[in-house]
């Protein structure tokens, strides 16, 4: 199955979207269809390997101008230029039209020679001609194209402009008093202005998703004799690459330099630079903040982690939530109703006769542009998803934003979720006459020969290797520990019995009941130090919990781990917990504690909690997990931080507020404005201002969701 992304720049409104959706989904080979109205893009899943052409053809037959998205970027500039010209010319001409109109008004009051009046009337035509004949062309085109199948929102607009202009020209020739050139000019200018602001706001909302989209075009690759420049598309896994200071990584790679400093903010939202050592995997899209580094490519440019995330995010942006679909349907019914009302209004006033029927009908057409209604929901959802992405949480579906405020129960997995997935030294005591730091260095030297998971706790400790120990004859003893020789003396590390094989490990009763446990370090059978390992909680664990508690969510720790580590983690924060659960028991626990109205969110790494994952209303996966789990999750944490979880709750509340405000505004505005216009109480210029400002207001309100929370954190 293949997937094609198509940009349709002249798909302005809900009716257009419905039209495209109907036509595409009717094709026999199409299996999936989703649309992003903010970006004016559709995404089609289909079975035909070379189906792109057929899709473009189908959309073109509807009267649109579709392009595959890569093409869309290149054409962007000319398109922006034309839009600017139309707007600028409309502005200049509109001012002249208003000036001449004003002169005619004054003439009505104070008298004006018939010759001057005639000249001004024809001057109006001259000033208005570029507006009606050039600036308003996009509206005509879109409206005519839409006549082939269903009507879109540009129909009332184009109709208003065309009718007003034609009637005015006719009056000009017959000498009838009413001219509507001022409405044509004002309406077109305001509408073009609103569209220009719309598209710049839409760009603001969607650029966040495109931050990864600019990897370096050229990379430095080792060709066996020296570094040569190569285009990024030629990089294949296994290539040796050099990344200069300050440059972005083009692909995922394994570090071969001894160390590196990376800025991963673009990928994970972490603002602190991260130190890496040789052998670590570095991800494309992050920046090298240390010295020049070298590494072996793990991926090509298109299958790096960053481009996978970008693709996933795009897919998500394209899927539509139930609320958004509802707005679509409302708008699709709206347009024909408005056209009918405008006709009725004009007819009514023509029969009653005490107001100008053309003017009243125009006001209805102009005032009721349903753009606000169509944009109200998608704009808010897109903005919020971009914000959460930036903070380190990738949503798999915008429905998560709508569901999150409903959540009543939040379950956490422990290991790998609330705690770091790797073991760390939690406790260390010197037992002999060596200082503990020296013991650590010896332990590090010894463990660096081991591949056991425990070893990483010692070797990743951030210490200088200044006094490195030279060890010989190092060997691991399965199930016991590791031993080697240092300056002719035998060094051992492992459990107590292994270390004290030759001589007794001095027990010291003062340390508590667990003394015999832990990992011992001994030299010639004499104990030097004891270490205890554990999983350290994530740094922002406590703060996250506190902020979630403030949101009124009940939280419970569900762990497969033993009672004691769970208690140690949960008790200080008064977090409820259930320990030693199997995956099935976790599921049973969730189900048995679920009330009829409870909504459950589960956060875990997907290891040992598959059933719980499936049962949760929202499943959130952590960063260190398999792709399979990530694909099943509704959301993924992009960094080692938990705070984005709190951000999800806070952001979804704000989103809900903004969506409601937007819908209420759009509906309320139309309910008041349309009757006013029908009653002939609304002059067309006011109608134009009202229409343009209502859709701008909706978008501006949505951009509030791009800004940081009032608390200013995360």
């Amino acid at each position, binding site marked *: 199955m293949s997937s094609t992304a198509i940009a349709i720049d002249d798909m302005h409104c809900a009716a257009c979207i419905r039209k495209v959706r109907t036509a595409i989904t009717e094709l026999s080979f199409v299996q999936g269809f989703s649309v992003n109205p903010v970006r004016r893009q559709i995404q089609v899943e289909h079975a035909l390997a070379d189906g792109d052409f057929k899709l473009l053809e189908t959309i073109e037959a509807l009267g649109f101008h579709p392009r595959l998205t890569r093409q869309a970027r290149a054409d962007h500039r000319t398109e922006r*230029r034309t839009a600017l010209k139309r707007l*600028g010319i409309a502005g*200049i001409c509109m001012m*002249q039209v208003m000036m001449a109109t004003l002169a005619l008004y004054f003439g009505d009051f104070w008298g004006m*020679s018939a010759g001057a009046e005639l000249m001004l009337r024809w001057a109006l035509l001259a*000033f208005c001609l570029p507006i009606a004949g050039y600036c308003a062309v996009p509206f005509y085109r879109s409206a005519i194209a839409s006549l082939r199948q269903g009507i879109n929102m540009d129909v009332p607009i184009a109709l208003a402009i065309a009718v007003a202009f034609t009637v005015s020209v006719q009056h000009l020739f017959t000498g009838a008093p009413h001219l509507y050139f001022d409405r044509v000019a004002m309406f077109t200018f305001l509408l073009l202005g609103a569209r220009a602001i719309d598209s710049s706001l839409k760009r603001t909302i969607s650029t966040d998703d495109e931050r990864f989209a600019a990897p370096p075009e050229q990379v430095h690759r080792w060709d066996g004799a020296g570094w040569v420049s190569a285009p990024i598309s030629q990089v294949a896994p296994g290539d040796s690459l050099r990344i200069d200071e300050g440059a972005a990584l083009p692909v995922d790679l394994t570090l071969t330099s001894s160390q590196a400093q990376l800025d991963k903010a673009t990928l994970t939202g972490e603002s602190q630079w991260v130190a890496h050592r040789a052998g670590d995997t570095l991800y494309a899209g992050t920046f090298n903040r240390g010295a020049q580094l070298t590494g072996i490519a793990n991926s090509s440019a298109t299958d790096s982690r960053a481009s996978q995330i970008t693709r996933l995010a795009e897919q998500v942006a394209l899927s539509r939530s139930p609320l958004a679909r509802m707005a679509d349907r409302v708008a699709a019914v709206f347009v024909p109703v408005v056209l009918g009302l405008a006709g009725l209004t004009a007819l009514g006033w023509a029969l009653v006769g005490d107001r100008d029927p053309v003017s009243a009908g125009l006001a209805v057409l102009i005032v009721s542009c349903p753009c606000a209604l169509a944009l109200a929901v998608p704009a808010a959802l897109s903005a919020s998803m971009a914000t959460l992405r930036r903070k380190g949480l990738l949503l798999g579906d915008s429905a998560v934003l709508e569901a999150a405020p409903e959540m009543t129960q939040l379950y956490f997995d422990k290991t790998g979720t609330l705690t770091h997935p790797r073991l760390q030294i939690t406790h260390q005591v010197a037992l002999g006459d060596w200082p503990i730091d020296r013991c650590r260095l010896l332990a590090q030297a010894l463990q660096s020969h081991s591949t056991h998971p425990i070893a990483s706790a010692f070797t990743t400790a951030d210490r200088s290797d200044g006094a490195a120990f030279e060890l010989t004859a190092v060997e691991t003893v399965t199930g016991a520990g590791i031993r080697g020789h240092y300056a002719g003396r035998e060094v051992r590390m492992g459990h107590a019995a292994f270390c004290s094989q030759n001589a007794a490990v001095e027990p010291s009763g003062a340390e508590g009941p667990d003394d015999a446990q832990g990992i011992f370090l001994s030299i010639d059978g004499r104990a030097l130090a004891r270490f205890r390992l554990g999983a350290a909680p994530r740094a922002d664990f406590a703060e996250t919990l506190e902020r979630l508690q403030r949101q009124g969510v009940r939280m419970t720790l569900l762990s497969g781990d033993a009672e004691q580590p769970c208690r140690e983690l949960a008790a200080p924060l008064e977090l409820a917990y259930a320990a030693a659960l199997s995956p099935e028991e976790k599921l049973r626990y969730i189900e048995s504690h679920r009330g009829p109205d409870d909504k459950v969110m589960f956060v875990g790494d997907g290891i040992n909690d598959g059933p719980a994952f499936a049962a949760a209303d929202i499943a959130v996966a952590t960063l260190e997990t398999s792709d399979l789990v990530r694909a099943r999750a509704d959301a993924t944490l992009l960094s080692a931080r938990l705070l984005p979880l709190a951000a999800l709750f806070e952001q979804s509340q704000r989103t809900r507020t903004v969506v409601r405000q937007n819908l209420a505004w759009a509906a309320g505005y139309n309910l008041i404005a349309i009757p006013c216009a029908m009653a002939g109480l609304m002059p067309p210029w006011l109608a134009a201002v009202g229409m343009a400002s209502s859709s701008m207001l909706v978008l501006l309100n949505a951009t509030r969701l791009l800004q940081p929370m009032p608390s200013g954190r995360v």
Partner: protein
Amino acid sequence: MEVLALLIPLSIVLVGVALACFNWAVDHDQFEDLDRQGLAPLESPEDPPL
């Protein structure tokens, strides 16, 4: 008021000139980057252009 007979056609011609100027400006990238020139005094002469 006979002067209006001259002024009104003249204003139409002037607007035509204004439109032509605007058209030229858009075609010659005058509106492509409105921020850079404002920052130009802060650039040191050795720096490559922003």
